[in-house]
């Protein structure tokens, strides 16, 4: 099968406008004849469900949480980018486009990224109209701040809770449509299969997480906005319930999975402190504006930080990257922290942490100034660690944060399965091999408010879709397959818990497919995953009943999918014999230890086709053409 991105012809500035005109329309009276399923209620899913309903479609919206307001977009802290140029500092759509393609280490599709930059401005307008309380200047105008990877101030924010406020904005729009009867909301439902009829996506099978019932829903199109797969590492900044199941089961049904090895490790998180730990907490990137990163010069130096004199400290980022210092991009900062710890210079009880020290900033600006800037973050840090960062340096370590890979989609955000769309972090589209800060919120809302409402109409109007009911054999087949898996999981009755397997998988992935990778380690990890998967199906213990609240069963299904999916990540990482962005293969680095791309051989999107359980997936390549930006080696010296 030849992958076709369906990218419109013509100059990049005109592609989206031209495409919107070329897309077939569904007339207003006919929209009510179509049913659309949207899975997920985060920034992408919530905004899509609300907007499609505003247009007149009948929407069924599903989420695993108890309320659509809890989707994990809510935890985003920093902000949302837009090319408004309100600061008059030389920003433009073109500059946001350029920064994003470059920040992604030239592994994103130009046309998609340009459209994202164009739409960014509409998003801010829409959110303000909804009542999102963005930070303001005294005069009433919107405030901006700076973020990594850009030399302009284009980030809009609502304190350290931008994701929360944007999500609640989308949630309110969604609630309005639920109240109006245009969206039927299904909370506490987990997608367990996508149903295809005549090769088109025509519905889903879910488990009701309260009653345990397997339920079937039919529609004319299915939209997945089910987030990223960072929890394959067990420990990540993702929420406890974030998982790959919806995307992975779509992959099994024929949707190609693109660039699964592209994962983002965020440099400033609170370090792991025990085997019982369930998740990691991010400390905003903004802290690196004033905090200085250091480790002791001598490996194994276990003195209290206050007892280590200046002469025995190594401010390694300032030493190695004099022009960017502590503000190097995320991937570079993360890899360097790992390098220091690998040399035995890590600090804290585990030796897997570096210091982020505010002593100089407090001396220079006074405690009040630092408190105003970072007070809430310092408070959160103290709550979790019990240490007071005004008095002793913070300890930080990189943690899994975001996944750039996802379901392959064309310019219409449609997967390789007709009628199955993927939005937000669940797709692969806009961030290449590394996402810039404040761009995830932008992409989720662009997809939901302003792209899918147009492109789904083009699909519906361009296909004659017979009515399908859940009595169709394809639904029954799906249902029995899902039930069979549940029965198996509940009947194994082995000796290890689901979390125990998940933690072991996480260790393997972090060790061999994390911040730095090499071919030997990847091969080894692949074998380990296969063995672990085999053991899982013989020795997992899932207590409780099928027809009841059963959180162990929920997790078991997710971990079963992670155990399959992790191998796909390894296969993808082994295939990509270059380093780029979040994918760092130690064999491919510059003399200065930066990622060395191989544009000649790997300037493509790797889209994997499932051939079934136990079969090798097949690679399809979508070549990336760069007509508007020049490919360069990134340097931060």
């Amino acid at each position: 099968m030849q992958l076709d991105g369906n990218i419109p012809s013509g100059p990049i500035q005109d592609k989206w406008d031209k495409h919107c005109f070329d897309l077939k329309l569904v007339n207003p009276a006919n929209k009510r004849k179509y049913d659309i399923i949207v899975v997920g209620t985060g920034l992408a899913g919530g905004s899509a469900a609300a907007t499609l309903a505003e247009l007149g479609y009948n929407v069924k919206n599903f989420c695993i949480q108890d309320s659509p307001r809890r989707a994990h977009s809510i935890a985003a802290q920093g902000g949302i980018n837009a090319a408004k140029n309100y600061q008059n500092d030389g920003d433009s759509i073109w500059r946001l486009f350029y920064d994003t393609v470059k920040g992604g280490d030239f592994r994103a599709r130009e046309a998609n990224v340009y459209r994202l930059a164009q739409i960014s401005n509409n998003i801010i307008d829409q959110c303000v109209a909804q009542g999102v309380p963005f930070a303001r200047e005294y005069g009433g105008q919107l405030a901006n701040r700076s973020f990594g990877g850009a030399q302009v101030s284009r980030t809009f924010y609502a304190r350290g809770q931008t994701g929360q406020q944007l999500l609640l904005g989308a949630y309110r729009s969604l609630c309005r449509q639920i109240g109006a009867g245009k969206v039927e909301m299904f909370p506490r439902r987990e997608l367990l299969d996508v149903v295809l009829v005549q090769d088109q996506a025509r519905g889903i099978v879910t488990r009701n997480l309260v009653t345990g019932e397997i339920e079937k829903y039919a529609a004319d199109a299915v939209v997945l906005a089910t987030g990223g797969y960072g929890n394959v590492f067990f420990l990540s900044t993702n929420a406890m319930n974030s998982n790959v199941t919806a995307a992975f089961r779509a992959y099994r049904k024929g949707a190609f999975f693109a660039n699964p090895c592209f994962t983002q490790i965020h440099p400033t998180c609170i370090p792991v402190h025990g085997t019982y730990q369930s998740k990691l907490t991010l400390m905003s990137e903004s802290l690196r504006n004033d905090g200085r990163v250091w480790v002791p010069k001598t490996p194994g130096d276990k003195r209290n930080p206050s007892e280590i004199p200046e002469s025995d400290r190594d401010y390694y980022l300032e030493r190695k990257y004099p022009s960017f210092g502590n503000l190097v991009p995320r991937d570079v900062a993360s890899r360097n922290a790992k390098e220091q710890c690998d040399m035995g210079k890590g600090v804290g009880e585990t030796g897997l942490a570096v210091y982020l020290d505010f002593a100089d900033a407090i001396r220079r600006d006074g405690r009040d100034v630092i408190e105003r800037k970072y007070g809430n973050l310092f408070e959160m840090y103290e709550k979790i660690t019990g240490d007071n960062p005004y008095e002793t340096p913070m300890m930080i370590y990189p943690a899994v944060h975001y996944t750039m890979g996802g379901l392959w989609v064309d310019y219409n955000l449609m997967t390789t399965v007709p009628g199955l769309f993927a939005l937000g972090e669940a797709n692969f589209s806009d961030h290449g091999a590394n996402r810039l800060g404040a761009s995830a919120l932008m992409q989720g809302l662009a997809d939901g408010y302003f792209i899918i409402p147009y492109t789904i109409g083009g699909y519906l109007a361009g296909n004659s879709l017979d009515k399908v009911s859940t009595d169709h054999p394809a639904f029954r087949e799906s249902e029995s397959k899902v039930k069979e898996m549940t029965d198996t999981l509940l009947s194994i009755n082995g000796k290890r818990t689901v979390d125990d397997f998940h933690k072991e998988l996480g260790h393997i992935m972090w060790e061999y497919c994390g911040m730095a990778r090499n071919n030997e380690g990847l091969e080894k990890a692949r074998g380990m995953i296969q063995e672990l998967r085999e053991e899982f199906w013989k020795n997992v213990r899932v207590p409780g009943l099928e027809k009841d609240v059963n959180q162990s069963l929920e997790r078991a299904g997710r971990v079963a999918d992670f155990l399959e999916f992790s191998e796909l990540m390894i296969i993808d990482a082994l295939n990509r014999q270059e380093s780029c962005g979040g994918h760092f293969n130690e064999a491919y680095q510059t003399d200065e230890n930066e990622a060395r791309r191989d544009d000649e051989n790997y300037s493509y999107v790797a889209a994997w086709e499932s051939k079934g359980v136990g079969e090798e997936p097949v690679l399809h390549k979508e070549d990336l053409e760069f007509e508007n930006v020049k490919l360069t080696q990134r340097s931060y010296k």
Partner: protein
Amino acid sequence: MTQNINLTLKVWRQNGQQDKGRFETYEVSDISTDMSFLEMLDVLNETLTLEGKEPIAFDSDCREGICGQCGSVVNGRPHGQEKKTTLCQLHMRHFKNGDTIAIEPFRARAFKVLKDLMVDRGALDKVIQSGGFISVNAGGAPDANAIPVSGEIAERAMDAAQCIGCGACVAACPNASAMLFVSANVSHLALLPQGKLEAAKRALAMVRTMDACGFGNCSNERECEAECPKGISIINIARLNREFFKAGFFSHNE
């Protein structure tokens, strides 16, 4: 300093809505004081699973205090004794070796217990669905800077908008009223120029739905403010009352 402590837990177990429910006692040992409260429950659940018993059902998602999905009553206090802290951010260093801890679900007429510590807070969503929004479709918004909002008003709106919808205010209130929740939403939108047009209609609709969902009345106990993990102020309730009375006085069509 990190320590390991032993605790006695009295946990509410209830097998669905029909079951009457009861406290069951569990001993947990070697609990690191660096653990969060929910991680301590994770440890207990691992043990229960291996012993062939059913783990305790409880809700949680982000575990960083922002999604609002977690929450139980710990020793009589929603989210436990620490101020402005969700249960997932309550750490075991606030407990002593040998402590006995009682853990029960948020209780209110409008919140049904689904299982153990897990409750259905769908009524809060229903209140928002009845009017807790600004009626604007995607697409037609004017330039964001065309609607100036003073820095001070934006800050006050943000103070109210911080509500995470966890329901602790309801669980804390002797009348199981949702006034703090409703008022945070009403004030946030009524403070902003974008939300003023519908302010009266919104307040009326939300208060009516709140009543219909079985939440109680506000009798100024202030327990809600004391237990709110986000520090939402009862000033918002005064603002809600103002909007509600205005709506009553100036309502033409009812």
